[in-house]
């Protein structure tokens, strides 16, 4: 086939796309893979290091105390700060997490207090991002750079997705004369690694695409929540615009009971106090979740008038927020039991091998091209990915 035909041109374009999208994102992807590996097991590691509440054994069915007593216990632990929210974990129904900060609107909170819902005992107190897993999560999500860091990693995620798609296109070209999973062991190290790169890459392609795409969506979380606050939340609280803050407010228990009555087949997952970023000055926002594995991940906010305890509005969140909620477990792989996490770690390790072999192929190809500069200049081989075997 002569150089310059449409087929060769198309190959070179895809090869250049694959090379440069991979190279540009490589260092960050390696960092994401390496920090993501322990994060798969963050529950287990946090538990072992004492960063997760440990609930004492009590008789089954021990009743829960009113939520206001949990709030009071958390406030007593941190005088001078305000309660922003109370959240509940579907896997730990006897525990509650109270978020406190110096100001109601502040995001993120200054402290988290974990309490036993049966006794109002404080189980744990922590700052957001505390502990080794908190450090790794911060590095993994924004590299300690806040929103710009998140958005930058989102761009790296998009490059990763493009590298995967272009890699799939190139795979088809490479495998024309080879059977699936062929590794040419008698050939040079570069050819052997090219075959392994192709095989491991294609075997993990669906997983890598899911994790890459959902990771990119996760980097837009702050933007999506801002969009929701300015859109749907503003719409839901519009009738209260200009209304002064209530002088007295109903208890959190009343707000939760009202939301529960409005959605009896759902359970409260988070209660945002009036005046916080996720409610309004006049409302509690009770975020309800469904009871099936899928709907348990989708939140539905119920706005409760803080003065009267009356339900004022309840809507499903917009599609983009729902997509964000569904993408989170698919990215972190922590939605299943230990076997799934182990497989997730294995695939993460396989991605490191694909990335590492990609760098090796690029370096090895550059080395092999240098003595053949004349041939490269003549257009016979312009890409390190071009098959020469």
């Amino acid at each position: 086939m002569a150089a310059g035909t449409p087929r060769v041109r198309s190959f070179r374009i895809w090869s250049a796309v694959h090379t440069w999208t991979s190279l540009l994102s490589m260092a960050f992807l390696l960092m994401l893979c390496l920090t993501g590996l322990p994060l798969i097991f963050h529950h287990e590691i946090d538990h072992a290091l004492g960063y997760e509440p440990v609930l004492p054994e009590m008789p089954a069915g021990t009743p829960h105390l009113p939520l206001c007593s949990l709030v009071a216990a958390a406030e007593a632990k941190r005088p001078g700060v305000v309660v922003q929210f109370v959240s509940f974990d579907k896997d730990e129904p006897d525990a509650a997490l109270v978020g406190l900060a110096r100001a109601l609107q502040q995001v993120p909170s200054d402290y988290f207090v974990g309490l036993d819902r049966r006794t109002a005992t404080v189980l744990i107190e922590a700052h957001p991002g505390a502990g080794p897993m908190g450090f790794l999560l911060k590095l993994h999500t924004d590299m300690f750079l806040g929103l710009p860091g998140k958005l930058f990693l989102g761009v790296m995620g998009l490059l990763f997705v493009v590298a995967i798609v272009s890699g799939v296109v190139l795979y088809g070209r490479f495998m024309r004369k080879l059977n699936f999973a062929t590794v040419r062991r008698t050939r040079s190290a570069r050819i052997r690694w090219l075959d392994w790169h192709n095989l491991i890459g294609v075997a993990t392609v669906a997983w890598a695409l899911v994790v890459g795409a959902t990771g990119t969506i996760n980097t837009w979380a702050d933007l999506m929540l801002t969009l929701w606050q300015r859109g749907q939340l503003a719409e839901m609280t519009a009738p209260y615009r200009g209304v002064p803050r209530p002088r007295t407010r109903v208890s959190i228990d009343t707000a939760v009971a009202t939301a529960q009555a409005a959605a009896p087949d759902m359970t409260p997952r988070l209660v945002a106090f009036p005046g916080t970023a996720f409610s309004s000055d006049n409302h509690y926002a009770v975020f309800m979740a469904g009871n099936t594995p899928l709907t348990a991940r989708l939140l539905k906010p119920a706005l409760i008038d803080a003065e009267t305890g009356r339900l004022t509005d309840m809507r499903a969140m917009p599609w983009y927020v729902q997509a964000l909620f569904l993408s989170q477990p698919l990215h972190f792989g922590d939605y299943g039991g230990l076997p799934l996490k182990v497989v997730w770690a294995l695939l993460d390790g396989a991605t490191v091998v694909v990335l590492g072999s990609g760098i090796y192929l690029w370096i090895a190809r550059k080395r092999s091209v240098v003595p053949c500069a004349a041939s490269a200049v003549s257009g016979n081989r312009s890409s390190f990915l071009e098959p020469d075997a």
Partner: protein
Amino acid sequence: MPSTGQARRIWTAPAIIAAVTLGSLIGALLTEEADRDAIAALILFLTFAYAIGLGLSRRKDSPRRSL
């Protein structure tokens, strides 16, 4: 353009692996029971292990080829 037979030879195995992977990931997300979740993880593992096992066992002294 590759022939239909050639395309089938190239893409059948990767397509099956991708379908099984996606099925396992979504199946594990939609299931509540831990044992079903473990089955999804096992299928995912076996699929990956099968591909790598083939790579380890399928040796070839291939002739030089050109694009």
